[in-house]
């Protein structure tokens, strides 16, 4: 059956529809009205149609409580976030302070209520009619001296003093006090313990507590009381120090207790739950969402700080916090506003905000009071009241216009901007976001902002009126103003995506962007243009909901650079309606994603491909058979295409120890430009210093970006940096930091110079941060793009690569901090072993293969060790676990049997070995040398593996030979002799009470170089690519055997008086006394280089 009954409206209301981007009611300041929004799931906005609730509490004079303005709250109301009974509160009450401040007033109040104790409140006062008989009976219930008074109260440290006062002054300390702790005490016990007391015929039961807020504690105890008395017992009253309950709670408690006596009545707002969360929780969640969508680390930091502040419940109260005063003002303002709404809910006769202030009685000349009142009216819960919001919106527009005029006047008169005015502006901008006043999106306001930035740069006048002498807090506010503004716009876009379109239009208007001449202003505009791009997220979320999209590449086994975009194109051809969704229409208006013919911008297709690839790669569903290297290449190559140009790019990632790995480096000509080893040089060298890279480091510019060192502004950290080769102040063009809004040319670092030499004119760096850690604190990687022409105008490209930052962060966390990366590095280590077989070992093998070679066993040992390291130990800096090192140690100890080495015999055998090596033409060439080997050892034997020791000595002798001094034809020694002879002295001794053996190899050679000495003595590898060979292999083996083992190098000039021995030294060649100048570097260049090996006994 066809369902063709037409839908008829119940009520026809006139409606005018406006396009969200053109709506004058939103964006035209002269016509604008507050926008009541609904979320996606509800049709009606979250609004309270009535004005703030009529307060039905009795006025102070009626219930004999102390008038609000006559209570001294000093020190008793503290601004801090507390949770009480599941409610989140901004204030903590200090009961003791309130009692101390108002001791006499409390006594007077008690005297006032004493005659009426036990008499329940007139029903007329509760809004009901009461007969005369009823009145008489009620009055007859007045408290008598013979009554047995029982005080029921929750068990809490804060109310004990007040209960004591009540007991003493009202009941002459004769009351029975029942302290009950509803959260921990068992209700069964309540009846057992207190049933008799409560059921006595002449018992008069009063509920006493310091504060009434939500009524939860009261009702839990009240319910128990009723249960224990068989639902027959009645309270004679409830006494509170301060009643902060909302109207409905107050009424319920009044009906249960019969009467309420409170020293002070305070009107505080209801705490409505916003989207199923307490207001503060909702606020924190809102900041978290903004954090998730924002693109800059600096902004993320700002938002996280705000979210964390909200979450810091129960934090110690800082009474010096300047916000304390302001929040106490807001506390009072809230009470007075409620009182005013109690008297005049329709706000009759109140037209302006000044009228409201006057009527509320919150009279204060200070602008801080106006701000306090306006603040509470423009936030929850007052913000929810429709009529009030309309009024507040109107007042805000007026105030905004007023301050705009004032600021323009200050700018025109070239005066210093007063600090208070600056704070007032910030306050009003923030209120614009709360109230939805889109005036701040207008070109007029942007021009005003540009003027404010200029005023701030000139120097703001402090609260005391002195320009430049700002407090630390004020200084921080000025420095972070651009971030503050940015956060407001980001929040506004988050609340209403169409604001992004307005912002784009405003920024495109003639002269708006150009009006920002200060560096902070330019930075704000630059960041804003990037942040606007977040509107694309909505469209992508829409795609993510479609199974066809998420499964697009599930079957893909490989990456096809040219055809993959066709899949996406095809997807949109099959789903044309997607391009008509509001999400895409909005994204298109902001980013211009469609060309004139309706075709999708190819860069956007590339962006979607990368995003899809990164998402699927995370799920491990598609592309699962593709290696990490290929994946990385595919991503970076695609990112290059976002610039629509032939680009060079590199990608550096860091592992868990922040060790840097170059995972991609390719010029447009398929060459590499970066020396991967050098990337870590500075980190190693500087780790013991001040953490700064040495100024000469060739990659300083990259490392600064990678490590997020602050840029020239000193405040923000690099997230994205751009350099261009441009005309400078000098005759020649130089590299300039395009984001550093100063005229000085950027100092030319080696890397930039090298780019320039290779014809590149533009470089963009993008840092990938760890978003799981504090924003901007931990760097995961650095992406770099360079081209032979300036691409700094390409806004869409920068927006798209910034949008991909978060996904890249996840990609690095997933792939480079886990076993996959370890496996890759293990494979690299194995490959290194294979490479090792190619060069040094070739010579060694030849040596081993010669007939009657004494070296064969040592070479076999070397091969075994290298093999073990290649397969068992990935890299001690990486993800190799400690257990692997233990396993390796076990293998070495078991594989190389430990025995007692006869030291003198061993030393003698070494002399023979050294002579063989020096005379062998296979190890470079046959060389003449004086070779000696002796022992000063007191011990005869030493427990160590002879095979390992032989290998160490063999390696060090070969090393000494290779690094011998090479005498040229014209060389003569300092004594005029021409003895072109090298020496090698091997010396054995004992140390640490014979627990360690010291082997020293002293040979003549050229100076080894300070960097080599430093590297060896710091325990680092001198070989490229982290090869485990030569000294590094020895060092690794001895360290695995015992951490106290060591290998060090020292050198001294062959012919100078060395400081250590304080004796006249001899020429290294002819052994005669030297005549050369000891203070300078040896002009003959012959040094005595000593490798010192300290080995401890092997303990299994």
């Amino acid at each position, binding site marked *: 059956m066809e369902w063709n009954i037409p839908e008829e409206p119940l009520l026809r209301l006139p409606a005018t529809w406006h396009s969200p981007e053109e709506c004058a009611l939103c964006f035209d300041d002269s016509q604008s009205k507050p926008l009541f929004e609904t979320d996606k799931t509800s049709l009606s906005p979250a609004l309270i149609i009535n004005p703030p609730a009529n307060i039905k509490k009795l006025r102070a004079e009626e219930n004999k409580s102390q008038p609000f303005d006559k209570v001294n709250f000093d020190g008793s109301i503290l601004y801090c976030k507390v949770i009480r009974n599941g409610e989140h509160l901004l204030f903590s009450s200090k009961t003791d302070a309130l009692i101390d401040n108002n001791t006499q007033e409390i006594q007077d109040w008690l005297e006032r209520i004493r005659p009426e104790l036990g008499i329940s409140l007139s029903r007329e006062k509760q809004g009901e009619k009461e007969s005369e008989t009823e009145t008489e009976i009620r009055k007859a219930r007045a408290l008598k001296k013979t009554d047995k008074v029982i005080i029921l109260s929750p068990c809490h440290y804060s109310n004990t003093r007040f209960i004591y006062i009540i007991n003493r002054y009202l009941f002459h300390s004769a009351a029975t006090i029942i302290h009950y702790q509803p959260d921990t005490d068992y209700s069964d016990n309540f009846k057992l313990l207190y049933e008799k007391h409560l059921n006595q015929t002449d018992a008069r039961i009063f509920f006493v507590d310091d504060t009434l807020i939500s009524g939860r504690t009261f009702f839990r105890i009240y319910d128990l009381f009723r249960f224990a008395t068989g639902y027959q017992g009645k309270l004679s009253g409830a006494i509170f120090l301060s009643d902060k309950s909302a109207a409905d709670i107050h009424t319920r408690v009044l009906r249960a207790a019969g009467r309420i006596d409170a020293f002070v009545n305070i009107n505080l707002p209801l705490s409505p739950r916003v989207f199923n969360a307490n207001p503060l929780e909702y606020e924190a969640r809102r900041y978290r969402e903004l954090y998730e969508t924002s693109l800059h680390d600096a902004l993320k930091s700002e938002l996280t700080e705000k979210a964390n502040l909200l979450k810091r419940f129960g934090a110690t109260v800082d009474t010096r916090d300047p916000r304390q005063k302001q929040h106490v003002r807001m506390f009072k303002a809230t009470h007075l506003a409620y009182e005013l709404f109690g008297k005049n809910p329709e706000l009759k006769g109140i037209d302006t905000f000044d009228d409201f202030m006057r009527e509320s009685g919150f009279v204060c000349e200070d602008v801080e009071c106006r701000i306090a009142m306006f603040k509470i009216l423009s936030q929850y819960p007052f913000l929810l009241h429709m009529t009030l919001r309309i009024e507040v919106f109107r007042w805000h527009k007026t105030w905004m216009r007023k301050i705009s005029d004032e600021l323009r006047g200050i700018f025109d008169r070239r005066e210093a901007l007063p600090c208070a005015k600056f704070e007032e502006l910030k306050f009003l901008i923030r209120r614009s976001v709360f109230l939805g006043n889109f005036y701040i999106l207008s070109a007029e306001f942007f021009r005003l902002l540009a003027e404010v930035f200029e005023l701030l740069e000139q120097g703001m006048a402090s609260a005391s009126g002195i320009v430049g002498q700002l407090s630390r807090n004020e200084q921080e506010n000025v420095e972070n103003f651009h971030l503050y503004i940015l956060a407001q716009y980001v929040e506004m876009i988050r609340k209403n995506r169409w604001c992004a379109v307005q912002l784009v239009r405003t920024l495109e208007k003639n002269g708006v962007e150009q009006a920002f001449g200060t560096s902070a202003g330019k930075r704000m505009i630059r960041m804003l243009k990037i942040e606007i791009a977040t509107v694309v997220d909505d469209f992508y979320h829409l795609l993510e909901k479609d199974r066809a999209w998420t499964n697009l590449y599930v079957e893909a086994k490989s990456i096809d650079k040219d055809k993959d975009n066709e899949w996406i194109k095809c997807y949109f051809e099959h789903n044309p309606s997607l391009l008509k969704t509001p999400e895409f229409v909005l994204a298109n208006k902001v980013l211009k994603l469609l060309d004139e013919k309706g075709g999708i911008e190819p860069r956007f297709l590339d962006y979607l491909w990368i995003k899809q690839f990164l998402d699927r790669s995370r799920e491990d569903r598609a592309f699962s058979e593709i290696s990490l290297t290929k994946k990385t290449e595919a991503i970076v190559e695609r990112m290059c295409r976002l610039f629509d140009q032939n680009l060079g790019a590199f990608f550096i990632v860091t592992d868990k120890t922040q060790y840097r790995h170059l995972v991609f480096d390719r010029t447009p000509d398929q060459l590499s430009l970066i020396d991967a*080893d050098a990337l870590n040089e500075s980190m190693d060298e500087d780790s013991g210093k001040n953490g700064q890279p040495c100024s000469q480091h060739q990659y300083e510019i990259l490392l600064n970006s990678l490590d997020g060192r602050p840029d020239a502004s000193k405040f923000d950290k690099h997230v994205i940096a751009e350099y261009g080769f441009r005309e400078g102040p000098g005759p020649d063009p130089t590299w300039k930091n395009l984001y550093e809004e100063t005229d000085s040319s950027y100092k030319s670092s080696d890397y930039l110079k090298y780019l320039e030499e290779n014809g590149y004119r533009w470089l963009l760096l993008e840092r990938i941060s760890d978003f799981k850690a504090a924003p901007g604190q931990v760097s995961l990687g650095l992406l770099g793009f360079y081209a032979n022409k300036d691409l700094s105008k390409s806004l869409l490209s920068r927006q798209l690569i910034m949008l991909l930052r978060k996904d890249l962060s996840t990609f690095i966390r997933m792939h480079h901090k886990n076993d996959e990366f370890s496996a890759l590095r293990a494979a690299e280590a194995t490959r290194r072993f294979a490479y090792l*077989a190619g060069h040094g070992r070739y010579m060694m093998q030849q040596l081993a293969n010669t007939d009657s070679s004494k070296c064969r066993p040592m070479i076999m040992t070397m091969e075994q060790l290298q093999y073990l390291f290649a397969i068992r130990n990935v890299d001690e800096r990486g993800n190799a676990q400690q257990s692997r090192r233990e396993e390796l140690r076990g293998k070495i100890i078991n594989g190389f049997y430990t025995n007692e080495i006869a030291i003198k015999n061993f030393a003698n055998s070494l002399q023979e070995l050294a002579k063989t090596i020096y005379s062998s033409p296979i190890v470079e060439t046959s060389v003449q040398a004086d070779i000696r080997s002796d022992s000063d050892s007191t011990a005869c034997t030493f427990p160590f593996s002879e095979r390992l020791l032989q290998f160490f000595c063999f390696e060090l002798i070969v090393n000494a030979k290779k690094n011998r001094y090479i005498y040229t034809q014209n060389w003569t020694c300092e004594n005029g002799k021409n003895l072109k002879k090298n020496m090698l002295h091997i010396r054995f001794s004992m140390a640490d009470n014979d627990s360690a053996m010291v082997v020293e190899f002293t040979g003549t050679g050229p100076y080894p*170089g300070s960097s080599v000495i430093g590297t060896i003595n710091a325990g680092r590898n001198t070989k490229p690519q982290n090869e485990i060979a030569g000294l590094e292999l020895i060092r690794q083996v001895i360290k695995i055997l015992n951490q106290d083992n060591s290998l060090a190098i020292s050198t001294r000039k062959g012919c100078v008086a060395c400081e250590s021995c304080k004796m006249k030294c001899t020429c290294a060649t002819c052994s005669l006394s030297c005549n050369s100048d000891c203070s300078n570097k040896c002009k003959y260049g012959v040094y005595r280089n000593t490798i010192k090996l300290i080995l401890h006994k092997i303990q299994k």
Partner: protein
Amino acid sequence: MGKINILVVENQSTQFYKIKDNLCNKEYNVFPNESDTDCNVTEFVNYVKVWVNEEYPDAYKKEAFEKICNQIEKNQIDLILMDHILGGGCKCKTGIALARAINSKWKGVELPVLFMSRTEESEKRRLMDYNRYMADFPQLSQWLHKGFFGDEILNEDYFSNVVIDAIDALYKKGQTEKYKKILVQWVKEDETGDKKSTQMYKILYDYLGKYPVTLEFKKAFEDYKSNRLLDASKKNDCKKIQHLLNLLRSSTPQLSL
């Protein structure tokens, strides 16, 4: 004569002799020579090691460089086969730096250099230097790895199939570039005088890139070069250049060097 003179700069003696064996089989002249009393293989390698090591006194480094250059001059070296890492554990200069120093000394008549590195692993480390070198001495260099297959290095098959071809191609390129540079010089010298011979030089210059240089041409060119300054009247200049042109045009790849 007629063989290509190659200077092999290799600090590992075993590898030097292996390269020499591979080249001598193909009838190249390989230097340094064992029988050279002034500077034999060991001494030459020593000089190279002294020059690359920054820590030797300047006077000795200067002496070492002179000895290296003497080898080139004395043996009329046509091409250098250069190892990349020439020093030991110290941070020494590389073969690229040595090639640069040598070619900077003979600015204008640069020698082609075939770099041989142990493996591709060192690629990133050397690429920056090598790219700079390529920018300064374009066309006249190439990079090859030493042919590591499993346990073997400088494999004979790899050498004859890859390295020999690269040497020949680079040599030809080097010769062509050398003649072109000389012709450019002559054109500059004759610009104000003999316009006809200038025109002929330009045609010859164009032909040089298109036809392979033969031994016959090489000889005729060297003769012309040595007589050119002596023949002040330049009566038969155009005829001689025409002869060179004919030689070049008649050359075929088979007959080329």
